[in-house]
């Protein structure tokens, strides 16, 4: 057999041409023509014509109602088939294998971006979008007591019982307003602390969650004398008890009492609390945990009420029914709760008779829209985090786009050939999209691995409570898929458009890749990357500076050396007077200890939770309310700015006096002397008189620089805690304090904490936020630099010929460098400018978490600008230097 003279590529193309039954005929025709041309005009001519004949067959398929003579129409009827997709995929795999370095960088970059994005989203999902796990929560309502101007959610236990017993059509359940943490160990001092929420027996029936183990609480568990039982939170059970399947029926010790675990909620159930508790028990166990008598019709312990609207019952009807009960029972006219004090702290003490505020009725607030105090804050974090995720993704996409653009230009020949061979444009776009989409999906899979690893770390960093489930849930997976696809598609669209436009065939081997379109596209991408990095960097620097600022924030008192002592009084053995005696004795002994400078009782020591009262004064205004002893101001070190503080005699007499903070005085009494004014001007209904103004102290949240506070004489000794100021090292003192309290009554469990620990916990929040932002900014910066480096290397590589000509014509190396660097940095500068403007506009939303730092902080912007300029100059100069060092003779010889 002689050597086949026909062109090999043409033979190959002919072989893959779908000719069907006509194949033999067509091949014969081609062969006959080839032989006859070879005989008459030579092999070279015959080969050329053979090639163009084969191509014409391909083209013929595309153009002229693509049928070969005698070919059935149906052969080409399906435009899109699984075979095509498979073909695209195998081809994509082959293309990706061809440039492993580019692909690796792309995939890792995208994966990092995707996993950072998903982790951020998951945290957000846990904190902000967390579902309550309540079935049909739209019918669930908060039962609010309405006053003349406002509404509150605090009811006394006796009010709850009255409402429950009289409400026929509407079912009402109660939740103890204050969850508390208890040691779960038998001896009461080691072991995990676990938060516990007390609910009425019908609570779970109203929430309708499914159960994953055992059963839920029932009204029978809420009967007086019932065995103490618990239901565990699924997340806590998984995390702290390793999802022990034999837990049901076993006992958990709380406050020295065994509680039998009867069940575990289904995964994701959080209930009505802002922070889900580790476990739930019934209100019937209140006295077991908190001391005092069992709750009954006389108890004024504060609870909040929830209700579920029966199907078809309008909210107004339910409201009217409850209002009539409340009005006929005459709530607020007896010896009931002062609403302003009803927001009790700690373990939910008894409320003394106070100035009654008439309850005008009941308002029902849909639970879903309850949003409440955190809504604004959460919305802000959502906006910031989602913006940051978006920016990182834009960067990653821009990077991939850049790489694909570069390779698309390199592939113009291939694409041109495919078009010449009859590929429809749609088919090529599909091919390119398949390639970038598979990049996105591979990166997504890798990103998932990163996320699984990163998420617990991030959750630890931002201090997510252990009753939250931090594993990525369905929503997080959906988000990951979505952004992977988005990144893939987003990255692939622009290059495929450019590749199609630039495709030519036959194309010059030395095409410059410098069509204005793709050049502009690259410039826009580089600019976008620079802008996004600028925004993220400004964000990160602002948050970092905000965190530093928070650490230096003047909280108004010296937290070091300050300690808080809380006591849990055992079951029913203590009442008000006995607690008073206990504390009196404790104060006396503590003051005698060496190193103790002063001590006083207060309901809410600094950074130990807050007792906030919200008043409506034009806008929502939050006041920290604290009941204290006379020595509290001295112990904290607050200065008296006007009037005086109350005396020990006034405290014992529970005199109707109040001391307010400087900030509150300024906001409510501008230009007036607040001393002597009625407190009623601030807290509606209060009969107290303001007797003094003290300096501001931030004791609840660092974010709230207003530090509005009302101090009143302490009356609830069961809810009191002691604040101790010590001069010396507190470690030694803690030991002697423990001994001292032990000696007073070993039955009372005492917890000693340093106030500075609470402050540190508060500081952890801005630190975590700035860490997250820094992580994002670092990823963004790395992505932007990789992208910039890649583009510059590519463009300067494409301009090798031009550079060589310039050098050959006498340009110096530094001339060339200057030219190239200027060209490469121009889009970066535009991008940085745009980013700075964007950051200046966007950083305003951060005001709340900057602890008083201005969001337009010039130092931040300057720092970000300098870092980015220096980094991009570096990324540009490196490849440029290599390009400028070409040997012009060598390059020009290639031409």
């Amino acid at each position, binding site marked *: 057999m002689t050597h086949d003279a026909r062109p090999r590529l043409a033979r190959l193309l002919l072989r893959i041409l779908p000719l069907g039954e006509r194949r033999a*005929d*067509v091949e014969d*025709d081609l062969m006959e*023509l080839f032989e*006859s041309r070879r005989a008459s005009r030579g092999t070279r001519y015959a080969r050329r014509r053979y090639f163009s004949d084969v191509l*014409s067959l391909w083209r*013929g398929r595309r153009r002229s109602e693509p049928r070969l003579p005698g070919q059935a129409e149906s052969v080409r009827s399906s435009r899109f088939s699984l075979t095509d997709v498979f073909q695209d995929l195998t081809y994509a795999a082959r293309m990706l294998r061809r440039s492993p370095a580019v692909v690796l960088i792309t995939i890792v970059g995208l994966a990092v971006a995707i996993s950072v994005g998903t982790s951020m989203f998951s945290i957000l999902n846990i904190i902000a979008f967390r579902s309550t796990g309540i079935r049909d929560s739209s019918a669930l309502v908060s039962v609010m007591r309405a006053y003349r101007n406002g509404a509150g959610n605090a009811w006394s236990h006796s009010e709850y019982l009255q409402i429950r017993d009289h409400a026929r059509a509407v079912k009402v359940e109660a939740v103890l307003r204050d969850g508390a943490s208890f040691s779960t160990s038998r001896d009461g001092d080691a072991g995990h602390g676990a938060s516990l929420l007390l609910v009425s027996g019908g609570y779970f029936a109203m929430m309708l969650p499914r159960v994953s183990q055992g059963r839920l609480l029932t009204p029978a568990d809420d009967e007086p004398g019932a065995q103490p039982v618990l239901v565990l939170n699924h997340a806590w059970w998984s995390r702290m008890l390793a999802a022990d399947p034999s837990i049901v029926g076993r006992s958990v010790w709380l406050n020295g009492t065994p509680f039998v675990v009867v069940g575990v909620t289904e995964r994701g159930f959080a209930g009505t609390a802002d922070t889900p508790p580790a476990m739930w028990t019934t209100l019937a166990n209140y006295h077991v945990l908190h001391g005092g008598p069992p709750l009954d019709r006389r108890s004024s312990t504060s609870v909040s009420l929830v209700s579920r609207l029966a199907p078809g019952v309008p909210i107004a009807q339910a409201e009217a029914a409850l209002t009539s009960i409340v009005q006929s029972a005459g709530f607020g006219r007896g010896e009931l709760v002062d609403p302003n004090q009803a927001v009790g702290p700690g373990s939910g003490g008894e409320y003394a008779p106070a100035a009654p505020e008439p309850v005008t009725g009941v308002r029902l607030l849909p639970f879903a829209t309850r949003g409440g105090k955190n809504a604004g804050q959460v919305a802000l974090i959502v906006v910031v985090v989602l913006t940051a995720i978006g920016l990182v993704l834009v960067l990653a996409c821009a990077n991939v786009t850049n790489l694909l653009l570069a390779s698309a230009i390199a592939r113009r020949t291939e694409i041109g050939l495919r078009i010449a061979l009859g590929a429809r444009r749609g088919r090529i776009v599909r091919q390119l999209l398949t390639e970038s989409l598979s990049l996105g999906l591979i990166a997504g899979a890798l990103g998932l691995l990163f996320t699984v690893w990163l998420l617990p770390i991030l959750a630890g960093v931002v201090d997510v409570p252990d009753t939250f489930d931090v594993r990525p849930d369905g929503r997080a997976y959906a988000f990951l898929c979505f952004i992977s696809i988005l990144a893939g598609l987003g990255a692939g669209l622009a290059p495929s458009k450019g590749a199609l436009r630039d495709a030519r065939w036959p194309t010059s081997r030395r095409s410059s890749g410098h069509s204005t379109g793709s050049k502009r596209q690259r410039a826009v991408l580089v600019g976008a990357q620079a802008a996004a990095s600028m925004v993220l960097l400004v964000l990160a620097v602002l948050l970092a500076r905000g965190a530093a600022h928070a650490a230096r924030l003047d909280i108004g008192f010296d937290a070091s050396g300050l300690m808080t002592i809380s006591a849990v009084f055992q079951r029913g053995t203590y009442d008000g007077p006995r607690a008073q005696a206990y504390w009196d004795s404790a104060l006396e002994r503590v003051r005698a200890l060496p190193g103790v400078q002063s001590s006083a009782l207060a309901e809410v020591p600094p950074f130990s939770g807050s007792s906030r009262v919200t008043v409506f004064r034009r806008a929502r205004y939050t006041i920290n309310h604290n009941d204290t002893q006379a020595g509290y101001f001295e112990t904290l070190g607050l200065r008296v700015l006007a009037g005086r503080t109350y005396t020990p005699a006034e405290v014992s007499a529970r005199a109707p006096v109040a001391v307010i903070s400087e900030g509150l005085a300024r906001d409510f009494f501008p230009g007036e002397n607040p001393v002597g004014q009625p407190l009623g001007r601030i807290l509606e209904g209060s009969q107290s008189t303001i007797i003094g103004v003290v300096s501001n102290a931030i004791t609840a949240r660092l974010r709230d620089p207003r530090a509005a506070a009302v101090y009143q004489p302490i009356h609830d000794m069961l809810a009191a805690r002691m604040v101790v100021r010590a001069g010396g090292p507190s470690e030694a003192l803690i030991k002697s304090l423990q001994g001292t309290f032990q000696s007073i009554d070993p039955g009372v469990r005492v917890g000693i904490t340093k106030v500075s620990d609470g402050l540190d916990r508060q500081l952890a929040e801005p630190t975590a936020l700035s860490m997250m932002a820094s992580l994002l900014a670092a990823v963004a910066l790395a992505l932007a630099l990789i992208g910039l480096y890649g583009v510059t290397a590519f463009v300067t590589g494409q301009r090798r010929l031009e550079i060589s000509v310039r050098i050959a014509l006498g340009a110096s190396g530094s001339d060339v460098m200057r030219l190239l660097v200027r060209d490469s940095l121009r889009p970066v500068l535009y991008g940085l400018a745009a980013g700075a403007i964007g950051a200046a506009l966007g950083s305003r939303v951060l005001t709340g978490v900057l602890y008083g730092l201005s969001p337009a902080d010039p130092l931040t912007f300057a720092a970000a600008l300098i870092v980015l300029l220096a980094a991009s100059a570096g990324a540009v100069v490196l490849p440029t230097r290599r390009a400028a060092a070409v040997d012009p003779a060598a390059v020009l010889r290639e031409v």
Partner: protein
Amino acid sequence: MKGERLGEFEEFTLLAVRALGDHTYAVPVQQFVEEATGRDVSLGAVYAALARLENKGFVRSSMAAATARRGGKSKRLYAVTPLGLRTARELHRMRQEIWTTIAEGRQP
């Protein structure tokens, strides 16, 4: 669709089939057209034109019995249909009329 007009390349192809004495196949047609027009004609274009002509009903094809020349394989042969012939003639007559008009210098 039947009874359509003829494109230029189709006309050449149709006439080539006729000139080659009907019952011809693609290769002679290609060679004929290339020679007659003096320009490169690809086999694909000839196939496409034949397919269109057949579609319009101007030529018909049939599978011929094996011939010795092609190693005993069968091939598709083409012949001009009466409709094709009429259409080509009509085209030719119209051209002739126009040329006559031009030669006589008459205004249409």
